């Protein structure tokens, strides 16, 4: 019998959910809503009496002081004036509330078969047209990919269609090129004709047709997402042949630097470096772009959930300790009329992505300590969501061992039909049809399943119960088991995999990207202990395969062989791509204009620009202090709201040793030259490390390339340029790359034309700091202190915010003079460690003026500046260039009078000069080269300009 429960907030108490929905509807432009009531709905199916239901409601589902409920009756009167709409998840979509509810019901002593489904019900009053209603449902109340509005005659608990086993073979042995491509396309394999021919040849040699699951396994393993074909291919770059871009740039610099503190690089799920005598730390950043474009909440949710499993699957499993997130979106006020078909509005993407990351990270209890958001309308159809995680790993646990006879154990969540074709889907371009074609790629995460799985994995690790671990990410079990048993072989019994519901085919089981699963390699003697340990904390663990020594991947379904392919072919059979790349130097017009006499409004305008303004609304909703290691928080200063540089975290409580986490990203420079964009991103990430008191001694970098379709020579040319900069700059700074990731094909079809995202490189840095108590924050501390600038200011206005607000262009993109900058940074680090620095801020977007203004209002004190003494090798004669140029490798430093002599002596051989003083009042003033005041404002005005835009 089906019972329906409605739960609502008692009259007179605030309805936060209704208020949020009302606001979102208003933002859509529909202003006729009078009232909204929101109700939580639970459906139960099972042998439950009315009293049972009442007990479940009162003991479990409702909050007795704030909520009331009804059974099988509307909680609030319904009449014609009320529009009544109820939203539920589509069948097969993960609903985390169901699992918790079932657990709660069982705890109350109920057993027997009980099914639960949840929904959200809204009563909406106000004059609304049919179109308005459709808009509200589609744009606010649900996402049609994962949810639907319940229809009056709908069967709430639909029986899943049972699966009838049939071994499927694909007839491609005699197919011609066109037919091969047809097979690739209809099967959503995203394989090109060379790859299809290679597969055809392989099976011709075996003398049999491939099965569907074999093709899926190959497609997934050979996908751009999993095998990085572009980076590992051959490239003809302006006539020069590059064999494997990855090996000749980012990996090469690491090999040549050969730092002893790099423990495991580019081979495991995350890069590993030494932390202290007892621990290593590892770091990984990944993207989840296409899923986030279609379903922002679920896409970002599973993005962060997925990257957490990378450190967890590194070595023998690292404890996740820090999250970092960087997003690229279209402007939140992008005109709705101009939105390309099939895209969600950037504001909705922003809110959804942020909520997804927030809810998963907060529930996992991992602090989100650092991040960035970059807005540009070229991300409207294809937003970028970078999620990063740092893990802490006991020393000596970086090596995995897999041997014949070991058991392959899947732990964590169950397998469902979610995330089918994620890896291949993410390797193709988005189209306005992507929503329908690829909806299986969209998923919702379940952080508590991941959390409890993590808790047990770390115990099993410390008891030495398994010898290898990896995550189920893109490609699911196919990727996880295929990779971890690459050198041995494995025999998998697919029917043993625990399923969320009936009806999955053997192929779906194998390639499902259902979240919150890990794979362990367990010696047979530990099998029962492992299963018992997981069971003891209500986590499922199931043996699904055995390691062999055949170097073959053998899949069975109830004993019937459905796949049998060589590991060697699977992992190394993909034909190397050969591609052309071209690059032509930029030829933007050099804007020429007279210098304004007053630059106050320019400064305010830059502070208010989306890419500079305060992100406090975003940051506050992340728990950035859980796990108790926070040293420098993302918001700093006298009112805890100034923009901190890098984050500093002590991962081992009781020790003062810390890690520094920072990032660098600036796609604006890439419009001019991706070489200098990449160089600047590295410089920015490292600058932040130095600004908080770190040194260049132990800085590890991660690269994340998000590009357009690199089949197109111009897109590939910019990728080559950026990679070359990674080598050049990291080599000089002696900062090795330890891991990375690329996401190509970030393009979106509009009216048949493919629009690429701007080439986007995120550089993430992790550094080790011996003594956290020497960290420096960016807020000014004391009136009377001197303000210095370190570094050389040049006429590098290309891509600057100053040029941006005026729509000026220039080819003079900021470059990095790495050999000199290295010396400046090392000297500044010495000053910091000698205790000479009161505050220090990285000089980046918006230039000197923005950096100093931020320091002033973060510290709650005014500053006077004089531009006369700003060191500049080009002898600049314009105030706007000195104030707003975004030249790299510069820092603003505050020094107390008592330390001035020592500081100046230390800095005497590098470009460094005193340019101002911290004031006792709240005035911010800049005296220009001509001795006249060119900026004057109160710090309150500047702070308001900076805080207002995203104060949601």
């Amino acid at each position, binding site marked *: 019998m089906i019972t329906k429960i409605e739960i609502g907030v008692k009259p007179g108490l605030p309805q*936060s959910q209704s208020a949020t929905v009302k606001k979102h509807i208003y933002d859509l432009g529909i202003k006729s809503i009078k009232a909204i009531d929101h109700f939580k709905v639970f459906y139960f199916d099972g042998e439950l009496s009315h009293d049972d239901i009442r007990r479940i409601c009162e003991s479990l589902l*409702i909050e007795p002081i704030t909520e009331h409920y009804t059974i099988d009756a509307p909680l609030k009167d319904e009449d014609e004036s009320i529009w009544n709409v109820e939203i539920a998840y589509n069948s097969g979509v993960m609903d985390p509330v169901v699992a918790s509810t079932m657990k709660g019901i069982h705890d109350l002593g109920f057993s027997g078969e009980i099914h639960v489904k949840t929904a959200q019900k809204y009563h909406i009053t106000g004059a609304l047209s049919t179109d308005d209603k459709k808009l509200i449902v589609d744009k606010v109340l649900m996402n049609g990919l994962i949810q639907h509005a319940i229809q009056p005659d709908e069967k709430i608990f639909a029986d899943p269609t049972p699966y009838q086993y049939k071994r499927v073979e694909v007839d491609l042995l005699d197919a011609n090129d066109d037919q091969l491509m047809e097979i690739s396309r209809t099967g959503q394999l995203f394989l090109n004709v060379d790859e299809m021919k290679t597969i055809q040849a392989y099976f011709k040699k075996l003398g049999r047709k491939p099965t569907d699951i074999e093709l899926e396994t190959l497609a997934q393993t050979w996908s751009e997402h999993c095998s990085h074909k572009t980076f590992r291919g051959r490239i003809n770059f302006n006539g020069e042949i590059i064999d494997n871009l990855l090996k000749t740039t980012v990996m090469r610099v690491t090999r040549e630097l050969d730092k002893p503190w790099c423990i495991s690089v580019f081979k495991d799920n995350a890069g590993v470096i030494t932390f202290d005598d007892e621990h290593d730390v590892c770091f990984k950043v990944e993207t989840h772009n296409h899923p986030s474009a279609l379903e922002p909440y679920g896409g970002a949710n599973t993005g962060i959930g997925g990257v957490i499993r990378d450190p967890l699957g590194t070595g023998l499993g690292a404890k996740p300790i820090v999250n970092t997130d960087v997003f690229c979106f279209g402007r939140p006020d992008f005109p709705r009329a101009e939105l390309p078909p099939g895209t969600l509005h950037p504001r909705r993407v922003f809110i959804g992505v942020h909520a997804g990351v927030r809810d998963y990270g907060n*529930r996992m209890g991992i602090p989100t300590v650092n991040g960035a958001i970059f807005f540009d309308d070229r991300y409207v159809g294809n937003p970028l969501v970078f999620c990063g995680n740092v893990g802490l790993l006991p020393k000596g646990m970086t090596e995995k061992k897999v041997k014949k006879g070991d058991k392959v154990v899947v732990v964590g969540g169950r397998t469902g039909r979610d995330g089918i074709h994620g890896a291949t889907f993410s390797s193709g371009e988005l189209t306005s049809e992507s929503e329908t074609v690829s909806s299986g790629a969209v998923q919702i995460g379940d952080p508590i399943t991941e959390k409890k799985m993590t808790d047990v994995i770390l115990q099993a690790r410390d008891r030495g119960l398994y010898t290898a671990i990896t995550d189920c990410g893109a490609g699911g079990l196919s990727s996880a088991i295929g990779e971890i048993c690459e050198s041995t072989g494995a025999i998998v019994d697919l029917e043993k995999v625990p399923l969320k519901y009936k009806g999955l085919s053997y192929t779906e089981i194998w390639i499902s990207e259902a979240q919150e699963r890990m794979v362990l390699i367990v010696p047979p003697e530990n099998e029962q202990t492992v299963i018992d340990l997981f069971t003891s904390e209500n986590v499922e663990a199931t043996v699904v395969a055995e390691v062999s020594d055949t170097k073959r991947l053998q899949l069975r379904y109830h004993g019937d062989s459905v796949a049998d392919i060589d590991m060697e072919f699977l992992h190394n059979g993909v034909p190397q791509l050969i591609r052309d790349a071209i690059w032509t130097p930029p030829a933007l017009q050099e804007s020429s204009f007279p210098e304004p006499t007053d630059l106050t409004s320019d400064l305010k305008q830059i502070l208010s620009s989306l890419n500079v303004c305060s992100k406090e609304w975003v940051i*506050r909703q992340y728990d950035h202090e*859980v*796990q108790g290691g926070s040293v420098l928080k993302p918001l700093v200063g006298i009112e805890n709201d100034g923009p901190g540089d890098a984050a500093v975290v002590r991962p081992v*409580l009781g020790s003062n040793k810390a890690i520094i986490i920072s990032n660098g990203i600036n796609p604006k420079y890439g419009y001019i030259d991706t070489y200098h964009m990449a160089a600047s991103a590295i410089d920015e990430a490292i600058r932040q490390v130095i600004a908080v008191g770190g040194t260049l001694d132990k800085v590890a970098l991660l690269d994340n390339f998000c590009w357009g379709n690199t089949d197109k020579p111009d897109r590939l040319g910019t990728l080559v340029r950026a990679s070359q900069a990674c080598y050049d700059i990291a080599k000089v700074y002696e900062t090795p790359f330890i891991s990375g990731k690329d996401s190509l094909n970030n393009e979106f079809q509009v009216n048949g034309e493919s629009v690429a995202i701007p080439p986007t490189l995120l550089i993430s840095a992790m550094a080790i700091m011996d003594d956290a108590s020497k960290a420096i924050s960016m807020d000014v*501390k004391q009136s009377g202190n001197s303000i210095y600038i370190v570094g050389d200011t040049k006429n590098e206005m290309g891509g600057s915010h100053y040029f941006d607000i005026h729509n000026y262009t220039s080819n003079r993109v900021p470059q990095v003079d790495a050999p000199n900058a290295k010396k400046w940074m090392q000297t500044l680090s010495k000053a910091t460690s000698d205790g000479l620095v009161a505050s220090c801020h990285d000089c980046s977007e918006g230039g000197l003026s923005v950096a100093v203004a931020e320091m002033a209002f973060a510290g709650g004190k005014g500053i006077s500046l004089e531009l006369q003494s700003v060191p500049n090798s080009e002898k600049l004669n314009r105030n706007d260039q000195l104030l707003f140029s975004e030249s790299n490798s510069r820092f603003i430093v505050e020094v107390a009078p008592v330390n001035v002599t020592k500081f100046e002596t230390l800095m005497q051989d590098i470009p460094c000069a005193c340019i101002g003083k911290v004031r006792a009042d709240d005035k911010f003033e800049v005296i220009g080269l001509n001795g006249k005041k060119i900026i004057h404002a109160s710090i309150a005005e500047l702070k308001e300009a900076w805080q207002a835009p995203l104060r949601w």
Partner: protein
Amino acid sequence: MATVKTLVLRTAGSNCDGETVHAFEAVGSKVDLLHINRVVEGQAHLEEYQILAIPGGFTYGDDIAAGKIFANELKYKLTDQLQAFFDAGKLIIGICNGFQVMVKAGLLPAVTLQNAEQQVTLTNNDSGKFEDRWVHVKPVSKKCVFTQGIEQPIYVPVAHAEGKFIPRNDDVLNELKANDQIVFQYVTESGEPADYPGNPNGSVENIAGICDPTGRMFGLMPHPERHFHPTHHPQWTRLGLKEEGDGVIVFRNAVEYFR
């Protein structure tokens, strides 16, 4: 000195357990961190401990109401052990989600594990969102074991979406006052009652934490374990490093109580 044993009790979704263990260890307690299943199964017993701590987190995702499922586990599966623990004069602290658990399990505002009506709750913040921010809280109760010796407001972070304290009715509130059970109130830096964001969730009477009539059961929304190390203070780079964080005394008081 007598050994004081603390049990930090976790379940699926507990996530401040590590720093809570660290806090109790740093003030000299021996600490065990156990999953509730171990106690339910009888592999461990509450009677072996003097202090029980229920750490922060999102137990079971707070998918129903915050802390509800964990609260039911305590209430229905450990009823007798908890009653005996209380009757033996021992201490329980619930922080953040642990506070939510305590009020829903019938451990606060008084120990009433047997089917009593819930008297107070912690519900959605007025701001409608999860917020991580630092707040000043003023000590009020003279009887709470955990806050003895705290004379001035302390500075501690909150990080929650459901922290708005509401009593069932005015009688409950008056009783809390009459019994001196209000332990902490959100205040401004100078100690005056704070509005948002100083009162980060809109709590009635700015209540941030309460104890039971004995002063031995204590729940609070702010995280004393996150202002433990001197570098936790968000402005330590401005104000210099303190000897110890403002939250240390809460844990030390608990351990000292048994010495």
